[in-house]
């Protein structure tokens, strides 16, 4: 069989599968929606109706999403720590290179923006960047979870919840302040307080960016007619790009401000006034 014939057969098989799936999605009646698009989008912003149970607490789905992501990352990190890192080679393979590159990206960001003190900062922005990136991509999987009212919701990106965004924004601000205190004491606190709008701007920037992506995705997936082809572009534009951009923006801003406030204070030497006799 020639190469060309093989290609044609594969193409036909895929076309048939796609056609069957397309017909099936139209013929099979969708589950009755328990909320309108307005309610759905309002809930995506305010999280008023859809609450989930978390060890007896009624929380937003983003809390479950956040802990799920942490669990997945923990398992992955344990496997890597136990089976991969001890087998690291001096000349790295592809996976080792990926891990080293990922660590190096944040480590370099920390050391370039805060040359004086950057070990803890490197670890922090590594965690924050990884969390923002993976938690935003997590939205693409669309894991279903049952609400306390019995309805099913797709777990969103945790940071599209205002509470998660505020927690990360404020934590970043506290980390920046801690760097200032350790390096410059009270002067560091003063330097950090100078940018008092930072926690709000960081929180709401992230919240707004991720929420907009979540809303567009919600809108697209709500209507069956919009669920063909379009999600590919929406997914890339509003999820992957946001994941990368927001991870980069928050980590860069944190390291930049951390470096600024942890910079050692150098006393300015004022030139003495020439009061003596002139020659």
């Amino acid at each position, binding site marked *: 069989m020639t190469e060309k014939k093989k290609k044609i057969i594969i193409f036909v098989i895929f076309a048939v599968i796609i056609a069957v799936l397309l017909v099936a999605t139209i013929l099979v009646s969708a589950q009755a929606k328990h909320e309108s698009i307005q309610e759905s989008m309002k809930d995506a912003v305010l999280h008023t109706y859809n609450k989930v149970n978390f060890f007896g607490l009624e*929380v*937003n789905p983003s809390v479950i999403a956040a802990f799920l992501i942490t669990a997945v990352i923990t398992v992955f990190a344990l496997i890597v720590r136990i089976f991969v*890192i001890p087998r690291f080679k*001096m000349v790295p393979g592809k996976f080792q290179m990926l891990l080293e590159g990922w660590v190096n990206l944040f480590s370099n960001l920390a050391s370039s923006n805060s040359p004086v003190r950057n070990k803890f900062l490197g670890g922090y922005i590594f965690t924050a960047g990884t969390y923002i990136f993976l938690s935003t991509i997590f939205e693409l999987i669309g894991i279903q979870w049952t609400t306390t009212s019995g309805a099913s919701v797709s777990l969103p990106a945790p940071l599209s919840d205002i*509470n998660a965004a505020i*927690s990360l924004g404020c934590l970043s601000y506290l980390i920046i302040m801690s760097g200032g205190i350790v390096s410059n004491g009270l002067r560091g606190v003063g330097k950090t307080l100078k940018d008092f709008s930072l926690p709000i701007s960081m929180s709401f920037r992230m919240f707004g960016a991720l929420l907009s992506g979540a809303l567009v995705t919600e809108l697209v997936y709500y209507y069956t007619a919009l669920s063909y082809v379009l999600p590919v572009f929406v997914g890339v534009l509003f999820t992957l790009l946001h994941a990368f951009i927001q991870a980069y923006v928050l980590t860069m801003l944190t390291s930049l401000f951390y470096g600024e406030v942890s910079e050692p204070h150098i006393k300015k030497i004022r030139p003495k006034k020439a009061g003596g006799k002139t020659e």
Partner: protein
Amino acid sequence: MPLNIDWQQILLHLLNFAILFCVLFFLLYNPIKKFMKKREDYYKNIDDEANKKLSDAEELKSSYENKLKASDEEIAEKQKAAYDSFSKEIDEQRAEAEKEAESIIESARKKSLKEKEDIISGAQTEIAEIAAAMADKIVKGNTSDTYDEFLTDAEKDEK
């Protein structure tokens, strides 16, 4: 709270992030950083060793060059000393030869002088003998008045 901000959920997110920080920092970030530092040190060590070996080699090269230079100087000195002693010997030999030549010339001169004197004295004797023979011949062959007068005068003087 506006925007449905819930402090309990903020704290839950903070707790989640704290757990994640511990996991990622101690299980991934730190070990990978340590490994990278170890590798950096390893290659730095190799680099340092190579540089040290290079500097040792440079040092060795310069020491050998110095030794070569010193041996060249030594060879030149020895050559000069050998040349000096050789030229001195030649001078001595020349002086000796000159002296010998002078003595040979002197002895030859003396010998020739002696031979000359001998020849002269031999010639004189011969001349005297020839003169005596001639006189004798004259005396024996022709008695002249002159001779008689001479003899008479000589007898007179004796008286």
